């Protein structure tokens, strides 16, 4: 049996994410440099590939919306800084899109391994399409994984950021297909007494465990 000493550890939701220092196209950055803001750390398989190019255009298109939400973007692949720079320049020249956020050059796979971004059954040499949404206290709030062949949905990423920030601000949950402006879910009661009272508290209740309210 092969003895694999490179343990892949996936950070879990709610945990503080691992610190790193990495070379990017905007200088050497640490995870802790982002404390105080939300961060979307995402990986892509490789520069100069078609699906990744469409994704980078997509991420650039939502960048200003993310900034309004105190949210930064940080890309990653196992390509070099020079490759990233050449690709970013090419996207600007051929597609007219400026990539405004840094991209990690994870040549030694140090960050990829810390974040479980390499799935050997997909590729032993490339990162899959991961999205880690990290809050201002450096805690992991959402993990998304997409295979190499499926480009990500930027509106869903934006929607998740909105949902997480709404949850933090109002102490509520968000139902299926929620979008900003829709009713939110009141956290379910934890005791029989609270359950009894819940339907009398003025919420739009379908039953004691499912109550909505408008913000």
């Amino acid at each position, binding site marked *: 049996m092969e003895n694999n000493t490179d343990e892949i550890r996936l950070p879990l939701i709610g945990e503080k994410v691992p610190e790193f220092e990495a070379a990017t196209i905007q*200088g*050497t950055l640490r995870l802790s440099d982002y404390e105080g803001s939300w961060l979307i750390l995402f990986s892509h398989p490789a520069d100069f590939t078609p699906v990744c190019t469409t994704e980078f255009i997509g991420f650039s298109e939502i960048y200003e919306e993310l900034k309004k939400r105190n949210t930064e973007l940080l890309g990653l692949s196992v390509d070099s800084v020079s490759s990233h720079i050449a690709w970013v320049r090419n996207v600007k020249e051929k597609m007219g899109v400026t990539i405004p956020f840094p991209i990690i050059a994870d040549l030694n796979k140090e960050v990829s391994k810390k974040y479980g971004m390499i799935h050997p059954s997909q590729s032993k040499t490339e990162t899959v399409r991961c999205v880690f949404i990290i809050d201002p206290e450096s805690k992991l709030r959402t993990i998304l994984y997409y295979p190499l062949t499926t480009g990500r949905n930027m509106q869903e990423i934006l929607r998740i950021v909105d949902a997480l920030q709404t949850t933090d601000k109002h102490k509520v949950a968000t139902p299926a297909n929620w979008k900003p402006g829709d009713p939110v879910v009141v956290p379910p009661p934890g005791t029989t007494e609270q359950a009894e009272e819940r339907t009398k508290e003025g919420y739009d209740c379908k039953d004691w465990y499912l109550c909505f309210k408008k913000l």
Partner: protein
Amino acid sequence: MINMPCVSPDGKPTQMGIAKLNALKSGPLTPKELADATGHPMFRVRSGLRELVSAGYVKQVDDKYELTPHGNELVQ
């Protein structure tokens, strides 16, 4: 490190580095104050300050950053 947006490979500050040094001319600032003064995002202020400290243009005193004599000489 291979690329330093605030300090060139020859050790001189870049335009982004100069902007931070200029903002520190009026006195010591926290990273947040420096971000507000320069319009640079916090992650770039923190990484840039590391480079400027390492190159000897800036030093940290408690939670603020101030110009060293070398940094002061450059922006005066």
